């Protein structure tokens, strides 16, 4: 029977309308010594207002440099069952489509070898298994790999690529996000499991600019589906929206960031040349508006959480690229970017931070991409591109 700890401070986090992680840990603690000690140590952290975890050191199983985050209690005598409490990252599947058979097996494996606590999914996108000891790492890996699963990325490596559900469930996907993610994962196994980058690198793929996976804020490389043609307008459906009470002027026209739309009460007009394909109008009037023409993706670089510099959003590097298997053009472009990062990046410097430090001109020259107006991040913002003497003489 696991030890029971009094947890008055954590109990406070069970109040209110939202699901509570404390409730879930308590459920696991009823049958797992590890989860029980985890709860005890967490209560102590809240009481003492300090953390008692140390992390680092161990990183994986034999041959791997990623997929395991070593975690150790700094109070092993007081909480012996969490003296080791390593996290295991399992490479999630594109779009997070699991079978119930796999989920049952995964839970059985984790009950056998770990604390029983999971996190679906971590912010990187992995299927995260929380809390096991060092001896169990190889058996856990053997169990998962025998079923066709693999560890995810961690450390100074390519992190597990992730994407929105894409064409599997969404008619607005301009690219096959699931296939792109699968292809990236297969192509760069070494980059994911054998860390050789200055720091982490994340890919996230969104089917359209609605960006359900928030790739623009969460990935060093955001791949966002877009299109080249006009927006087809079904005026009868526009009238239906108006009839049902939608204020088209307020909700659609006035909200258009590039002000490319007008509405006279009868007809919705779009000046497609000024459209920046943000998807706002289409997402609001799904029955009336539809993208047409060639489909592809915009490639953006550089978002990250605060660290050396504050949080940044990705910015456009390539406004439009065809994304069709085997994605060679895209992959060659990424390899050039990594070469630039490898050449000039400092330890723990993200690629976006390096571009800011070295300058956009040097980056674009290195990767062989011409400067374009779409690379300017915001109106009236310095695009970081400065002309050389040679450019001025042309």
């Amino acid at each position, binding site marked *: 029977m696991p030890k029971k700890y009094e947890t008055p401070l954590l109990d406070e986090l069970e109040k209110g309308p939202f699901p509570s992680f404390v409730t879930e840990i308590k459920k696991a603690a009823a049958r797992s010594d590890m989860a029980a000690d985890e709860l005890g140590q967490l209560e102590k952290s809240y009481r003492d207002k300090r953390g008692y975890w140390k992390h*680092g*050191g*161990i*990183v*994986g199983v*034999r*041959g*791997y*440099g*990623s997929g395991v*985050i*070593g975690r150790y209690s700094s109070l092993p005598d007081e909480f012996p069952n969490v003296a080791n409490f390593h996290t295991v990252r399992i490479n999630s599947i594109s779009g997070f489509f699991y079978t119930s058979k796999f989920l049952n097996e995964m839970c059985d494996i984790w009950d056998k070898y770990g604390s029983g606590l999971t996190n679906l999914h971590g912010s990187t996108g992995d299927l995260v298994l929380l809390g096991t000891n060092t001896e169990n790492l190889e058996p856990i890996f053997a169990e998962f790999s025998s079923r066709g699963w693999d560890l995810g990325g*961690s*450390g*100074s*490596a390519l992190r597990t690529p992730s994407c929105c559900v894409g064409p599997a469930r969404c008619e607005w996907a301009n690219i096959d996000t699931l296939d792109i993610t699968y292809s990236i994962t297969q192509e760069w196994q*070494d980059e994911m499991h*054998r*860390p*050789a*980058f*200055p*720091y982490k690198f994340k890919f996230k793929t969104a089917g359209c600019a609605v960006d359900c996976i928030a790739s623009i804020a969460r990935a060093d490389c955001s791949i966002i589906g877009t299109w080249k043609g006009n927006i087809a307008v079904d005026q009868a459906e526009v009238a239906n929206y108006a009839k049902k009470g939608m204020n088209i002027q307020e909700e659609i026209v006035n909200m258009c960031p590039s002000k490319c739309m007008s509405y006279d009460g009868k007809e919705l007009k779009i000046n497609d040349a000024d459209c920046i394909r943000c998807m706002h109008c289409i997402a609001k009037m799904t029955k009336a508006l539809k993208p047409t023409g060639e489909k592809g993706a915009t490639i953006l670089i550089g978002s990250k959480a605060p660290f050396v510099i504050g949080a940044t959003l990705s910015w456009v590097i390539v406004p439009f690229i065809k994304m069709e298997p085997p994605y060679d053009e895209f992959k060659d472009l990424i390899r050039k970017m990594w070469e630039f990062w*490898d050449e000039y990046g400092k*330890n*723990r410097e993200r690629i976006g931070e390096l571009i800011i430090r070295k300058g956009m001109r040097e980056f674009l020259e290195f990767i062989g991409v011409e400067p374009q107006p779409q690379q300017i991040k915001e109106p009236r913002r310095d695009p970081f591109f400065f002309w050389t003497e040679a450019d001025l003489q042309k």
Partner: protein
Amino acid sequence: MEKEEVKKKIYELVEKSTGKKKLKSSDIQKTISAEAGISRDEVKDALRDLIDEGKLIYTYFGGSFVEIPPK
């Protein structure tokens, strides 16, 4: 250069740095390829063997490094 020789060079480099400077995989690739006049891919391949054999391991201390496993 024979792969075994490259492996030996990598191991010696990591051994020499132990306790002084933690080396990243890219540091090893750059140093050995420059010293031995071989491609980075060849160094990467030899490093992979050393890791797979357990003679070297990856560690994480705020970044990922290559080190000799503790005895």
